[in-house]
């Protein structure tokens, strides 16, 4: 689960990290007052959206008057932000952060993630802050210093001191940095994060370290035990169809193509997208109906797939294990009655109760249904149909 920058700053602030004061607004007529309240000659205005690429898109700007703040806020709220990460339709800006511009002597990077291979959290730090860490990792991997730490013992002060030294911080700055690292590592564990990142961590000319941008991602599997984190969820940042799917225990991801997919199992769902591509088609979605799918759930899955106007044909690929083929057949028949198929639906069924399912579909005699002999045949048929 992702959250907004203003929420991330709040988490850091509550954990005792040095974060400059800021104001959050959701109407442009609040901008001038927010500017004055900050009491700084120059203010940074930042759109609060999850997508990256804000700076390049013009949604992070430096201004120096209340009037400018209001004008800029009005523009940001009125125009959806389009960046590399948003797709051409862009994302609507609903909240704006205003923060005093900070004089910067140097920028650092600090982040905590899980190292999957080592199965333990790792703190990463770099003296090359202010740019994407992936960029640093690609161009100059030696510039990233790492400290792996025990999930129960946490990051140890001696580790933090070693990292501070490694990125060139000495004396009082090393002390400040050590404190920040320890608090960030503690937050990562306490809140079940998958990413806790300060970028940049800024060194001011007055020799103070300040966190001026932050990013947190949380483990979706753990939000059940963090009511405070769950409360930060912003449904307006999510794809509406994906949210609706979640309500029905379906795992759905919208893609760019025109062949809708309905599959049981995440691996098979990915493999189904792959085989469509292999035969020259483009999948419109990833959809895993899950093992304990009911006919109602599967009908809803059809509804979601068919609500995508770019879908021109559907491939149903079920390997019945715990999910039974007859349940899917029942759902196909119900979907045909309740929603109606105006496009070809290629059906490949195998596994538990497949014979019952095939018989049911044969008797239902739905003209748009096209049975497939196997997976390759299914992929070929559906690609030929669009």
């Amino acid at each position, binding site marked *: 689960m992702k959250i907004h920058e203003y929420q991330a700053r709040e988490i850091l602030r509550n954990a005792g990290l040095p974060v400059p004061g800021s104001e959050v607004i959701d109407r442009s007529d609040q901008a001038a007052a927010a500017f004055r309240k900050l009491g700084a000659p120059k203010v940074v205005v930042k759109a609060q959206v999850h997508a990256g690429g804000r700076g390049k898109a013009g949604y992070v700007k430096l201004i120096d008057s209340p009037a400018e703040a209001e004008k800029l806020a009005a523009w940001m709220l009125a125009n959806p932000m389009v960046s590399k*990460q948003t797709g051409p339709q862009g994302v609507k800006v609903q909240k704006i952060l205003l923060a005093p511009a900070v004089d910067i002597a140097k920028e650092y990077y600090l982040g905590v993630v*899980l190292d*999957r*291979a080592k*199965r*333990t*959290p790792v703190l990463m730090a770099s003296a090359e802050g202010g740019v994407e*860490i*992936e960029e640093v*990792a*690609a161009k100059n991997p030696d510039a990233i210093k790492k400290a792996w730490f*025990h*999930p*129960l013992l946490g990051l140890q002060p001696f580790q933090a001191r070693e990292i501070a030294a490694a990125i060139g911080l000495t004396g009082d700055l090393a002390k400040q940095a050590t404190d920040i690292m320890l608090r960030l590592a503690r937050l990562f*564990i306490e809140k*079940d994060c*998958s990413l806790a990142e300060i970028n940049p961590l800024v060194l001011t000319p007055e020799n103070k370290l300040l966190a001026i941008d932050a990013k947190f991602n949380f*483990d*979706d*599997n*753990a939000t*059940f*035990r963090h009511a405070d984190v769950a409360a930060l969820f912003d449904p307006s940042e999510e794809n509406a169809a994906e949210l609706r799917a979640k309500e029905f225990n379906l*795992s759905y*991801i919208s*893609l760019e193509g025109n062949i809708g997919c309905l*599959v*049981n*199992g*995440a*691996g*098979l*769902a*990915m*493999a*189904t*997208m*792959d*085989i*469509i*591509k*292999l035969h020259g088609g483009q*999948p419109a979605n*990833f959809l*895993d109906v899950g*093992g*304990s799918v009911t006919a109602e759930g599967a009908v809803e899955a059809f509804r979601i797939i068919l609500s995508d106007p770019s879908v021109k044909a559907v491939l149903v690929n079920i*390997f*019945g*294990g*715990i999910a039974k083929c007859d349940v899917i057949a029942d759902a196909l028949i119900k979907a045909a009655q309740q929603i109606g198929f105006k496009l070809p639906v290629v059906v490949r069924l*195998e*596994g*538990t109760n497949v014979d019952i399912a095939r018989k049911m579909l044969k008797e239902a005699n739905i003209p748009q249904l096209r049975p497939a002999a*196997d*997976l*390759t045949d299914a*992929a070929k048929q559906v690609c030929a149909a669009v």
Partner: protein
Amino acid sequence: MSILVDRNTRVICQGITGKAGAFHTRQCLDYGTKMVGGVTPGKGGTKSEHGLPVYDNCYQAVRETACDTTLIFVPAGGAAEAAMEAADAGIRLIVLITEGVPTLDMVKARKYLDDKGVLLVGPNCPGVITPGQCKIGIMPGYIHKPVDGKSKTVGIISRSGTLTYEAVWQCSQRGYAQTTCVGIGGDPVKGLNYIELLGMFENDPETQAIVMIGEIGGTDEEKAADFIKQNVRKPVVAFIAGRTAPPGKRMGHAGAIISGGEGTADSKIAALRAAGIAVCDSPAVIGETLAKFI
């Protein structure tokens, strides 16, 4: 022969009185698995609907049934703890089916299990099956083909559930028996991984070839490729799911995500091919590809 489990494996089910636990205990019993009891805190001293003894905790279950393996259906919030309890009680192999276990719980539980030398399969997995002998998990038993002394044999390792069934089915259809199939699970932090299992299959005299099924996310397949190059003489056929998956999106499985340019299907396929492994372009030709090497 087989790896991990066979007809002598004695299994309990943690969460046996829950809906999923009860259903799959029945399926495992029907397959012939030696299910010897179950654990549900607060229901000790009763019998399950299958007539098996229910215990309050794993310690009692181990003492009373001499079980060595557990099949866990405990809900996500308590699943890691259930695994640690089993390990402390003396269980040798833990099969953790539960989906949605918090990642940091698994980080901690895995350290605990490693300290005790206990093996874990999962979480978020279909389980382990040695066809014809022992099924510990949720896979449909009938798609598998038991070793019969005549058929060629294959061992299967996979991060996915239904995609494993797909591979198993293609093998069975072509007359290849499976020594053991292990679904290692779709989470980023899990128990047994490719390398350990590749080693076990390499050392199992009955296994003639190995099928490994991977997907996007992490670098386990790349590490497996290195390992195979150095240590595996038996033919390995692979399929990697997720070539068409967009970066930054979690594709159903918690571990199936391409992040920061790492974990792409192309990188995995390239590493496997560089190690001389036959990688299938299509999930429909796993059996066909195997036929060329077995």
